């Protein structure tokens, strides 16, 4: 499970940056091509939902997703071979 913001939907409202108990969303800095400043993810591996979803088989937190007014946040399955980009970056 991996957290992802859909750039084609996000409108940069930054509500996700307010609601995540782990402060995983940070206000972005640069506008994308559509002129929107999409938030960045700060060590998303800390997200309880991502970590434990498969273990418990159900949504554990998901507050960011429920809150995101633009349906821009979701989780995608990680391909087993996919390098954990975020983990590497930090």
């Amino acid at each position, binding site marked *: 499970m991996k957290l992802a913001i859909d750039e084609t939907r996000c409108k940069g409202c930054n509500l996700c940056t307010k609601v995540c108990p782990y402060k995983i969303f940070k206000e972005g800095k640069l506008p994308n091509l559509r002129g*929107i400043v999409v938030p960045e993810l700060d060590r998303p591996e800390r997200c309880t939902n991502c970590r434990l979803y498969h273990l418990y088989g159900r949504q554990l937190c998901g507050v960011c997703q429920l809150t995101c*007014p*633009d349906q821009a946040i979701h989780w995608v399955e990680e391909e087993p071979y996919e390098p954990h980009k975020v983990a590497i970056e930090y």
Partner: protein
Amino acid sequence: MSFEDWFRQDRLPHIYCAGCGNGTIINCTLAAVDAMGWAKEDTVFVSGIGCSSRAPGYIVTDSLHTTHGRALAFATGVKMANPKLHVVVFTGDGDLAAIGGNHFIHACRRNIDLTVVCMNNQIYGMTGGQGSPTTPRGCISTTTPYGSTEPAFDLSELAIAAGANYVARWTSYHVKELERAVKTGLETPGFSFIEALVQCPTNFGRRNKFRQVADQIEYIKAHALLKAKRDRLLEQGERIPEDMYVVGELMRRSRPAMGLAPTEVKP
């Protein structure tokens, strides 16, 4: 299945402004609907006119986007003609309580088996920010340039007095509570009314000193008073500050209801 599966993906992103709370309310409602395990073909969304009322257009089921204020009257026709359908109504404060007030109180009175989610942003969003019957006194809108002087409705109280079986109020901040309230509403036979206070940054926030979306969310969060706490305060004879509003489950009862599905016969 998750609530995301109920969206018409080809219609997203929706037309709402950045930071508009309506999207959040739709998420919570669809999450509750999803949790009911209903089939999509048995579920119908109905709405009137307004930003909030655009919601059904983003949902994959059959849906009726009707005329301003009349959603509940259309929904009554749908539900009475085919009680097997689950009918959920999205509406706004203007749609429900200004032009649609009569259908609101009558649907409550009949206690017809509908679940109504009202996105109360205390303003007419779609038409550019005119005062609504829930605009708090003193607030600025384009038709109350000197601050609103009319007293506002408490929509949930009105629903209770008119006869609704289930009434709850939450906000776009209380996403989990809201989801649960909608679910309880969906489960309750008869009329369920869930009022969701939401931010309209474009037309309410901007004129009323909420420079950022988050400021208004902060305000909403800070001024929500849990029903249980309110009751405690009242018991202790304390005054409830005027700018607080009560959140929580405000009514649950089982008055006679209309439009109930014939109980399904198990084979």
